Every structure is written in C-alpha cells, then in structure tokens.
C-alpha cells in the first residue's frame, strides 16, 4: 500500500534521488538515511541500469560506480529491506530491469512489482516507459497497490497529457526543462508553463531536472509545485566524497546538510504562495 499521498499531505514534498550502491552498498545505506534526516519526504532510489539513456553525466557516472560496486536488482531489494527510513520509497529504474526480473519463467513484469511490494517500496519511476507501453506494469502496480509515477516533459501536450493522466499515480514528475538529468545553475522558465498545463490534475506535481540549491527549490515551490525532485546535486556530493576519499560519515553529513537546505528552501517557497493554499 503506497504511502506516497501522505508525503504530499502537509506541505511541499522534498524528493531526493540517489543511485543505490553508489559508490558501495554500505555507504549508500548511510547516505539514504542521511537524506531522511535532512528532511526527505519521499526518496527516489535509483536501481542502476547499464544504459541510462535519460541521465546526464553525473548520474551516468553514479550508475557506473554502483554497477562496479556490484549492485544488482537482488541486492537492491536487500538494500531496501535493510534501510531504516520511514518515508515512502520510489524505485527509479529502466524498464528492462523490471521486465527481466525473476528469470525466463517469471511472470513479467509482475514478479518485480511483487518483490518491490514485499520489501516495502511504494512506487516506480521508469524514464523509458511512456504511458503507451505501461499497461502491464500499471496492472501489476494496481494489483500490489503501488504507485506508478510518470514524467511530463516540456514537450508533452494535448493527447499525450491525457494518456499520462490516465496512467499516473503517486505524483507526476514535471521535467523542468528538455534534456537529461543534471544540476544547473539556472532554473528553467519552462517549469511554470508545464505546471500551468497540469493545473487541473488531481495528482501532486513534483518538479525535477536541474534543481541544485535551496533557492531553486524555493522559487519552484513558490511557483506552485507540490514537490521538488533533486538528484544530480546530491549525487555530486557522493562523487566528490568518493574522489577525495572522504569517510562515508562526512559525506553523509554533507548530504544531510544539502537535503536540509533544499527542504527548507521548499518550505520557504511554500510560505510565499498567495493565496496560501490550504493544507489538506
């Protein structure tokens, strides 16, 4: 049973992302837990796939580190089970790993979803699975009461929006600008437009792609977003710590701090909204 709706229930949701197993299993546990301490409302856990076609260099490199560190779907599920966090968890991965899970004789993609539900995941984001191809996964998610998050891009319009609306649950991932993931020093103006197009959707709107600072977070939430998704800015911290040979604790501290900056930014933005939306 997905716990995602709760995360948006009171105030803006801060949704950090990390690649699981980057740079190793143990550190990764600490990092994810640090995010929660820093104020995460939902956590996106990246299950690394060898061909991450939607990711920029930052996350590509994280994926390489995680794969080299031995991360696999099986280990990923162990990881989720072992995690000591209390917020909803979303598995972000590419369709082939979901589809292949359980070997040739498994029922696909149900086997993966079943296992995900078992270990306590709340939903999925699958960047290479557009609404048109999502029926089988959607059905399995319904069976196990998990959410299936979809991305809406700046280019998504008309019929496509409707198709996504029909399929989406948990939240909609509003892609702030064209391109691939990666932290930017500016925040795109495409965001407002996108949020506008989705204004009548009754699913929370979380904005991602390029958010890097508390200030970005503030502006985006002030602009009407129900949540912010931050990946590369956090993965950068992991990468830097890895390169410098810093201790996992030190890195975890920095992640916690960054998470706090971002979640507080989101809160500030929320406070600025006029008319102040009611907390439901």
């Amino acid at each position, binding site marked *: 049973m997905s716990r995602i709706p709760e995360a948006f229930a009171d105030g803006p949701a801060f949704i950090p992302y990390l690649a699981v197993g980057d740079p190793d299993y143990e550190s990764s546990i600490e990092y994810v837990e640090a995010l929660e301490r820093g104020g995460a409302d939902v956590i996106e856990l990246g299950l690394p796939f060898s061909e991450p*076609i939607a990711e920029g260099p930052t996350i590509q490199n994280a994926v390489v580190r995680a794969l080299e560190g031995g991360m696999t779907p099986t280990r990923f599920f162990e990881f989720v089970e072992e995690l000591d966090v209390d917020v909803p968890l979303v598995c972000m991965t590419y369709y082939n790993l979901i589809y292949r899970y359980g070997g040739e004789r498994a029922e696909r993609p149900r086997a993966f979803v079943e296992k995900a539900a078992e270990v306590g995941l709340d939903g999925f984001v699958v960047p290479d699975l557009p609404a048109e*191809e999502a029926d089988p996964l959607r059905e399995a998610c319904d069976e196990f009461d998990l959410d299936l998050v979809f991305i809406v*891009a700046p280019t*998504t319009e008309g019929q496509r929006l409707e198709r996504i609306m029909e399929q989406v649950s948990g939240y909609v991932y509003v892609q702030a600008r*064209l*391109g691939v993931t990666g932290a930017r020093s500016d925040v795109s103006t495409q965001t407002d437009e996108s949020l506008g197009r989705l204004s009548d959707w009754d699913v929370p709107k979380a904005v991602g792609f390029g958010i890097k600072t508390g200030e970005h977070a503030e502006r985006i939430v002030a602009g009407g977003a129900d949540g912010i998704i931050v990946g590369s800015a956090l993965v950068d911290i992991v990468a830097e710590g890895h390169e410098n040979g810093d201790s996992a604790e030190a890195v975890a501290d920095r992640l916690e701090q960054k998470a706090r900056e971002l979640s507080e930014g989101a809160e500030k933005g929320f406070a600025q909204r006029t008319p102040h939306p009611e907390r439901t």
Partner: protein
Amino acid sequence: MSTSDGKFGRYGGQYVPEALMPAIEELEDAYERYVLNNEDGFMDEFRQRLRDFGGRPTPTQYAERLSERYDRDVYMKREDLLHGGAHKLNNALGQVLLAKYMGKERIIAETGAGQHGTATAMACAHLDFDCEVYMGERDINRQRPNVFRMKINGAEVNPVTVGRGTLKEAISETMRDWATNVEDTHYVIGSVVGPHPFPAMVRDFQSVISEEAREQMREQAGTLPDSVLACAGGGSNTMGAFAEFVDDDGVDLYAVEAGGSSLSVDEEKGVAPNSASLSTGGEGVLHGARTKLLQDYDGQIMESHSVSSGLDYAGVGPELAYLVDENRATPVNVDDDAALEAFHRLSRMEGVIPALETAHAFAYLENNHEDLGDTVLVNVSGRGDKDLESVIEETEKRGIENAPDMSMFSGGLR
C-alpha cells in the same frame, strides 16, 4: 508486416523518455505522410537522389568463382558500390531528406564502424544540413579514416567516453542529445533499431536492396534465389535484403550474426564475446524497442564483441527478432576467424574486398553452402576499405591461413 501499431508481434514499441515522445509522434506522422503515402513526392525525390547521388541501382552480380567453388549459383547484391561504400546511405539519405521535409535544422546520428556516420555526413553535406555524429572513443580509434571522412564532409564528431566507448554507448548518448534538442533536431538512427517508427522506416528505406535484387534475379537468373544471406548487426542491410522476399515462401532468409570468439558469455563481467543477439539473446527492452538482446540474468546489457565494429551491438532490429520467432528467418552465426578468412577469400577470388561485416555472410556460405539450395543471393553490404587496418592486425594476430603475405604491413598501413 504492417506496423501501424509500431509492433512486430511482441517486439518493437516506443520505449523512450517522455521528452522524446512528441518528436517520435511527429516522426510517425511524417513517416506515414511522406514515406508511406509519398506526400509532396517525397519518395520520388528520394529515389531520384538515391540514383543520382547514391549510384542506384547497384548491380546483382553472378559470382563466377564462388559459384564454381560451391557448385551452385551464387549472386552478390553489390551495396558496396553505393556512394560511401555501404548500404548505409539508403537510410541516411532517406532520413536526412525526411528531416528536410519536416523542417528540421540539425541532424544528429550515432555511429559504430563509422559507416552510418559517414553516410549521414555525406547526406548532410548533400542536403546542406548541420550534422553532429556521436561515436564511442574506442571506435574513433578503430575507425580513424571514417572519422576523418565525416569531418571532411563537414560533420562534427563527438567522442563518447562512457562505458566501453562503442556503438551502444554512442546510441545512448545520441538519444540524450535528442532529448535535449528535440525541437529542431532529427536523430538519424543507423539501423532498423530504436523506437517505432524507426525500425519500419529504416527497413522501408533499405528495402530498395531487395526490390532491385528480386527484379535482377528474375532477369539474370530467371528465378528467385533459394536463399538470401545477409549479415546482421542492427539488421538494416538484413531487413533491406529480406524485405521483398518475405512473402516469397520458397526463399529462405539467413541472418548471419557475429559469433565473435565464442557464443558463451561472461555473466560476471557482463561481457559477451560475440554479437549474436538473435541466436543467443533474450527478450528485453533497449534503445526504445522490445527486441532480442545480449543481457545478463538481471537484464543488464552486455558488452558485445566482434572483429567488425559494425556488427558489434548487443541488440537487433525488432522485426528481425519477430521473423526469427515466426521461423521466417533463420539466425546463424560465424566466428571472427571465419569472417577474416572469408574476407580474404572473396577479395582474392572475386576481386571484391568486402567489409568485415559483409564477410560474415560469405563465411556462412563457405561453411554451409550445401544447405542453401541451387541459387544463393548474398548481400554485399559494404566495401572493406574502412577495415584495412583491422584486417592487418587481426590477420596477423590470428594467423589466418588464406591471407596473402602482408609482412610489409605489420604494424599498420603507415
């Protein structure tokens, strides 16, 4: 095979990031209007440019000495004579022209061996387009002459350094560029792979191969071939050579894959020492389509391997996967050594220096001619000029026996 839903049986589809979906839909629309319905005379212009710029039709040649050797009639469809030196231009020219009809301003492409990249660069120079080509760094080093040709034709070549730096990574990277610049940019994919409508569209552009060959066989041999052989990487020359024969029940279709050094895989390292996805791969989703893939138990894509860069890819076109499942096409494979031997054999016996990719088809002919009927058609997908350095290195390393004395070249061409 109708593809109105973008599926070939269980294969195909459109597994791409949402940001690309509108572009894909726009392309689908353009494909239907211009390619399938010849709107604004697109197909007429395409055929004319293929003729005048590309040099079509290419001949179907009776291979006298091979016919003697194998005691049956062997014909060769000479795509090596197409401008640029491979069948790749059929597709590249079609897509770049389509991009012009669609009002796009910029072309991107991926390339492995560099053949698709050079074909695209040539088409872009011809049609006055800006062109950027993504190419794995390792392939850049394996195929320097092709890199140079692209530059000479005015294209930018962007090295891809992720992963092993081959075709797989280059495709991923091109998709990322496309996702970023989708509004003014068309991605000219290099084979019958990727999301719908690419597999169908690339097949349609390439099917001129079998359209001509079928007619030429009727005229020259007075009969259709008993079997058609084509090498298969992504499978574009393969589908091009098969397309018009698919409905001819008497014609057997053989897709010859790169068996590399062995058909086994190293799951631990995620490496397959071959590129035989039709023969040994499992169903999965890669680069926008459901198809047969070289992957490990978990679904991680394997690094493929082949002596020929152009076959060195872990996936294959979904329509080919479908034809194989339907028993309409037979997937077979030959190893690196057999391909090199075939390279030397064809060069020596017929005066046609084939691409190493192409050599795989002839290697299969050598080993299995007895099962191929009285009349065999082999698609010569490209010429081997691009492979001379590899041939020197690999022939020496492997001690290929039917090679000429090349000692003056040990260490390479310079």
